[in-house]
């Protein structure tokens, strides 16, 4: 997404002259990189620190942003008392510190002291910097005066369709727009008319920044820090400007803006207001009586100092949680029965699901209902990357992980047999979306307003009844459309995209994915391709609930494309040449799992020449039961849900959740993510993993050189790792890294949400998404030999940071012996757990979860052999 360099260069911090451009590049790396809200791309919130080791990065980030880096001490101690942090894990974590035995002993002792304050944020640049000291000295609440003005200009300039009057003219830059309003209007644009700044307006932004800085800061050594502090006073907007500056494509309606312009406007504003408030002049920062105790942007600030006791607790918590999975996976003998079903005879149906942790439970439930169904996991774009423009879409969207830039465009169109049914008018029931202020509004409120009493009462008291708009809001495409997939000519369109794929490009993608997941033989008559999406109403963050591998979009188009391509005779012929022989009797059918409603929609059945009726019927019936069980399993997290035996009640409840206008938690999304298993389903098939695991299918035997694994990992690190870290940091400090509670959020310009009408944009995840999350790093278990994983890592370039700096933890699990090794830069370390550590067992899933409202350790399911 962003292309800034990830290594620091300290050249700009030296006082040998101030270079504005270099300074901006230097400080802007720390801004959030969350783009406009229409695409919610999960990412590492501390992306700028990824070159540092995990704990060190937390410490430095804390000192910059003023954020908490760990849970409160009480929470860790509580987990210890509850047995979720185990003694062996504590010993392991102490060992990891590199302290000697004596120091470890001392450290262990202070872990259990009561400590209510250490987790508070440290003194930070954002909260206690130069600017703050200066403003306290001047006794001016400058943020309260400047921010509303700046935010208003920014949001009017960048607005994507909420306001009725637009600020910029065609192709006008932000600076020029502001200048136009300030200089060519009969009414003054406050505060740019103040005498202190009016004379400056004709200068260029560069000159303005340097003359303002000179008056405000006074000493060049502090310029860079002051700029950073201005930007960090409203990280949301600064980050948005930076994202748009670097990637104008992220907006639908392009806008030209840069951090430099923002800084020029803001500095002018600051200077104007401070001069007005202090008519007799004011001291610059360099002239303040004492700068002692104020953190400065220098080597020392960027030097990590990791609080050891928190590090130990955190590592111990993670290790305990990891052990729950690793111990359960350890014993290969119990899985032998499993392998029989996979290899011996061909299953009734095979189903490809997304890697998503929410699909972890639906796969288990489906297999429990019908052991004849074999499931696979793959990144939910199914290896097909393209821009997609659906019938109802205003613009094309990328249907692939954010690291890929697609070259193809796929359009959805109506079948010829279908009449064009779109009316030219907005549906009447949607009239309230236009705020229509004056005469039309007067008329409407007089006549229709009362009707909204009933509408409102209906929505609030009968949410289960299908809301008008649920169908339109859901992502299920119309059954009578088809995707325009096969390319007719090689002429790219105006945006440089190719319309559709050629047959060999299709074969590349289908073959690639089938090889990735190790499905190259033993095809069953029916292969389901199940994408997922999530429907919710009244939820500006809807994109965060959809498929992460499709950049926050429902994966339906990808599933449909995959099925269409894999059914195509031409594609199959090419695949056959390449060694993948799909039997003629095998049909691919696409479907989508709605993760909030636990419903399935099946696509394009009418297009199949010989529908495999029996298998599809069986699959659908099994799926129905599985969905109900899944709904019941999810309901254990919802305090207000019926905790009954009946799957029907639960199913009804999750459906009404997704269509209630007053439900801030349509689902808990990725709240439980913790594990990621890359390997054959056989090693996880008999495990109850409580919806905690990303699952990617991978057959170690087919990949002696680690190339396939490299492809898989290049999606897993950014997508799954990104999801995990975004949840983790949003949970650790919800007000700095996260976006706080969503209840007061206000949608700003279709760019994001803010608190109230003049707040900063909020980045990260909302309180309602992370409240039940256990903040631990992702554990990736790869069923492959360490040497081969090493080969894979060497192919991954910068992505290696994820593993080397321990932003995710990686374990290699030998395919046969199930011996396990933990990765670190120093090498692979064999994992040993105490002999008496055993995974709990249960007959089947439904014996495990009823009545439990916390995360559940991994169980072995003994009833899975039949």
């Amino acid at each position, binding site marked *: 997404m962003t292309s800034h360099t990830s290594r620091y260069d300290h050249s700009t911090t030296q006082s040998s002259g101030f270079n504005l451009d270099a300074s901006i590049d230097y400080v802007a790396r720390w801004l959030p990189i969350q783009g406009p809200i229409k695409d919610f791309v999960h990412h590492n919130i501390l992306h700028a620190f990824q070159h540092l080791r995990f704990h060190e990065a937390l410490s430095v980030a804390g000192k910059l942003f003023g954020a908490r880096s760990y849970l409160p001490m009480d929470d860790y101690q509580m987990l210890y008392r509850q047995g979720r942090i185990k003694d062996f894990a504590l010993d392991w974590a102490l060992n990891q510190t590199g302290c000697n035995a004596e120091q470890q002993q001392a450290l262990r002792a202070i872990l259990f002291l009561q400590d209510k304050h250490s987790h508070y944020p440290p003194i930070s640049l954002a909260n206690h910097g130069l600017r703050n000291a200066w403003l306290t000295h001047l006794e001016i609440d400058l943020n309260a005066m400047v921010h509303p003005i700046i935010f208003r200009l920014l949001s009017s300039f960048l607005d994507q*369709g909420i306001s*009725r009057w637009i*600020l910029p003219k*065609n192709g006008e830059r932000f600076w020029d727009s502001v200048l136009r309003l300030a200089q060519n209007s009969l009414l003054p644009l406050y505060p740019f008319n103040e005498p202190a700044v009016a004379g400056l307006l004709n200068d260029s932004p560069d000159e303005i920044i340097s003359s303002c800085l000179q008056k405000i800061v006074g000493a060049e050594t502090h310029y860079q820090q002051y700029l950073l502090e201005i930007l960090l006073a409203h990280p949301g907007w600064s980050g948005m400007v930076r994202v748009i500056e670097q990637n104008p494509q992220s907006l639908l*309606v392009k806008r030209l803006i840069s951090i430099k312009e923002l800084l020029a406007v803001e500095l002018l504003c600051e200077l104007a207001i401070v001069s007005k408030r202090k008519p007799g002049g004011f001291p610059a920062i360099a002239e303040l009586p004492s700068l002692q105790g104020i953190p400065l942007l220098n080597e020392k600030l960027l030097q990590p100092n990791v609080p050891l006791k928190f590090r130990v607790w955190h590592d111990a918590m993670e290790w305990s949680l990891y052990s729950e999975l690793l111990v359960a996976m350890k014993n290969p003998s119990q899985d032998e029965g499993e392998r029989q079903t996979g290899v011996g005879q061909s299953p009734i149906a095979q189903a490809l699901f997304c890697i998503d942790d929410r699909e972890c439970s639906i796969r288990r439930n489906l297999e429990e209902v019908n052991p004849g169904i074999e499931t696979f996991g793959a990144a939910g774009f199914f290896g097909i990357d393209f821009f997609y423009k659906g019938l109802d879409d*205003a613009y094309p969207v990328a249907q692939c992980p954010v690291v890929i830039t697609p070259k193809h465009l796929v359009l959805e169109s109506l079948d010829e047999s279908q009449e064009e049914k779109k009316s030219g008018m907005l549906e009447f029931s949607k009239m309230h979306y236009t705020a229509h202020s004056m005469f039309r509004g007067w008329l409407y409120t007089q006549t229709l307003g009362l009707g909204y009493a009933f509408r409102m009462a209906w929505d609030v008291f009968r949410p289960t009844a299908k809301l008008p708009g649920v169908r339109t809001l859901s992502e299920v495409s119309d059954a009578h459309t088809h995707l325009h997939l096969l390319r007719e000519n090689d002429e790219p369109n105006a945006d440089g995209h190719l319309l559709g794929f050629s047959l060999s490009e299709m074969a590349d993608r289908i073959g690639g994915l089938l090889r990735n997941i190790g499905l190259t033989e033993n095809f069953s008559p029916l292969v389901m391709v199940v994408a997922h999406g999530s429907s919710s109403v009244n939820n500006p963050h809807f994109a965060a609930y959809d498929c992460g591998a499709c950049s926050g979009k429902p994966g339906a188009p990808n599933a449909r494309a995959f099925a269409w391509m894999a059914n195509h005779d031409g594609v199959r012929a090419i695949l056959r040449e390449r060694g993948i022989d799909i039997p003629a009797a095998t049909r691919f059918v696409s479907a989508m799992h709605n993760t909030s409603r636990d419903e399935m929609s099946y696509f394009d059945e009418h297009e199949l020449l010989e529908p495999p009726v029996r298998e599809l019927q069986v699959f659908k019936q099994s799926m129905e039961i599985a969905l109900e069980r899944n709904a019941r399993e999810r309901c254990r997290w919802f305090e207000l849900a019926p905790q009954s035996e009946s799957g029907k009640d639960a199913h009804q409840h999750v459906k009404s959740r997704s269509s209630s206008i007053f439900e801030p938690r349509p689902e808990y999304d990725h709240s439980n993510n913790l594990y990621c298993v890359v390997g054959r389903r056989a090693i996880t098939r008999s495990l109850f993993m409580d919806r905690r695991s990303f699952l990617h299918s991978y057959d170690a035997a087919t990949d002696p050189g680690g190339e396939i694994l490299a492809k898989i990992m290049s999606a897993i690190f950014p997508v799954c790792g990104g999801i995990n870290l975004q949840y983790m940091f949003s949970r650790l400090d919800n007000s700095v890294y996260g976006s*706080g509670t969503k*209840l007061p959020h206000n949608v700003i310009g279709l760019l994001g949400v803010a*608190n109230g009408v003049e707040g900063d944009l909020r980045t990260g995840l909302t309180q309602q998404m992370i409240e039940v999350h256990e903040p631990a790093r992702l554990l990736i278990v790869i069923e492959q030999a360490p040497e081969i994983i090493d080969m894979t890592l060497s192919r991954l370039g910068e992505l290696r940071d994820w593993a080397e700096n321990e932003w995710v933890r990686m374990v290699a699990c030998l395919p046969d012996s199930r011996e396990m090794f933990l990765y670190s830069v120093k090498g692979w370390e064999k994992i040993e757990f105490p002999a008496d550590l055993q995974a709990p067992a249960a007959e089947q899933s439904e014996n495990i979860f009823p009545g439990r409202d916390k995360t559940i350790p991994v169980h072995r399911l003994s009833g899975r052999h039949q």
Partner: protein
Amino acid sequence: MNQLLLACQILPLTALLSIMLSDGSEKKITRISYWFSHAMGISIFALLALWALSGFPRHEYHWFTLYEQDGFSFPILFYLDKVSAAYLFCVWTIFAVIIKYCRVYLHRETGYKRFFQTIFGFVFGLNLIVLSGDIDLLFAGWEIVGISSFLLIAFYRHRPQPVRNALRAYTIYRFCDVGLLLGAWMSHLLFHDSSHFSTLHALFENQAILQDNYSGIFMLSWLIILAASGKSAQFPFSFWLPRAMEGPTPSSAIFYGALSIHLGVFLLLRTQPIWSSEFLPRLVVFGIGLLTVIVASLSEKTQSNIKGQLAYASIVQVGFMFMELSMGLESLVLLHFMGNAFLRCYQLLVSPSIVTHLLRLEGAVDGDFTIVNAERMHFLPSTIRDTLPEVLQNTLYVFALQEGNLERLVKTLLWDPLKRLGAKVKVQGYIQNPWLLGGIAVLLLFALSGFDFAKGVLAFLVSVAMVLASLSAFAQKHSPVKVWNTVALSSFLAGIAVWLMSSAYWTDIMLFLSGIIPAWLLGWWVLEKMLEHENFVASPFVFRAMAETRPRLALLLFLSFLGLVGFPITPAFLGEDLLLTHASDQHPWFALPITITFVMNGVAAARVFLRLCMGRPTEISYVDESK
């Protein structure tokens, strides 16, 4: 019917108290609030049905008289007519929906209890206003609504911005309350005991009263209009409304979308005979409505956030209601009010879905929103672009973007001069000035020996001192204790001034002070306690989050704040009214200083409370450097 009228008041109050006393578990609060909201529904509908059956009468119910003394009485009086009926219906319908909505919406939110408490307080205030039989009781309800509004805006007290905006709304409320406070006094002055709403119509049919009190009624109209425009965010106060959208969405919906914003309209409907008797006030109401419609509909055009846009759309409609009112279209206004209330409430509730709506739905059809249509996506609409010269286009845009500059207008006209003046006042300095003290002593001697003239002069000086004290409290930033004591001082001075005017009122003064003194002392003690370990001067502008770190003290401070500013929980509320009435009967000029003090004291004390109690508890900790 009378019992039902009482039930409408008592039920929400009981609900408020029982939630306050409950242990804060969500389930219990829900049960209490459902129960009371149903009970309220039943009594309101029974009331309305009974009322309808008896032929839509103008029903008045005198419960009892709270206070009565030579010529002044404070009756508890309820009144039901078609205006109250319409409002009552809306209040309950929207309230019941919001309660149900919030049950799930606020699930697991910190402050669940606080929210339901406040919203019951709000509905209590509303019912009081809607059913009040005279302007005194209406004022009590008005204050309750004001304070609960203030609390809900600052609901997310961790962030400075909601707290700031709460203060902003409160300041406007407080300023406009002057209208009602003085209005109550003037209506006593003009109509004596017949200031009941039920008798207004009859009163004004008698032309004689108009001729006798022409200027008085004119003043009264002005005051009422001021109070109504403040509460309804009309010109020139429109700017506070969008900024008040800081609480959870449903609270914004019920307050600023649906109910609170229409209270100004209610006040005007109630007092229609008074202000519509003359042409000029009607013209003023019409003018305010028209100006509001113009400014707000322009401002709405450039709102790039959804809640701000809805707020301005709502203000525009209220502006229309003002215009309709001035033309005497009472029934149309009622219909319009109900329509606007329900529509805006719903719009705000579903405002988060604007993203899905615009991106996923409207792209396909030829609606208002067309990202595809590049023509619409730059600068002003083409009709304006093609007709106006460039400079006027920019002017229009700047006007809309800055929301008609109303905020800065109000700030420069009202607050800045007061602040500047206040900053110059040094109370200590005056007290130590020997000439001043000597002069006062001499005057005092004269006064005691019975010179009425000296008394008058002295009273004047004391009231000047009272205003100065208030101003200095208003401008003081560095010491909350000083602010607190100066506020109390100015209240004492008010008492002394009245005593000097006529010592016969000493019982009323005692009544007033019996509310003020305990509140002052309690507050002082709390402040000392709160600040004993704080170095306030080192960082005077930090929010100190005592509401979380020391919740009991914060609650006490809140209560004493309410007491000190004459909120209707202590006798001071009544006393304030009495002082004003008595003193101003003899010296009408006294109304001015005492109301200025009233506004300033309220704002100054509120600031102390916010500074100390709101904010996010952060304890700066140093990461252990050695490890």
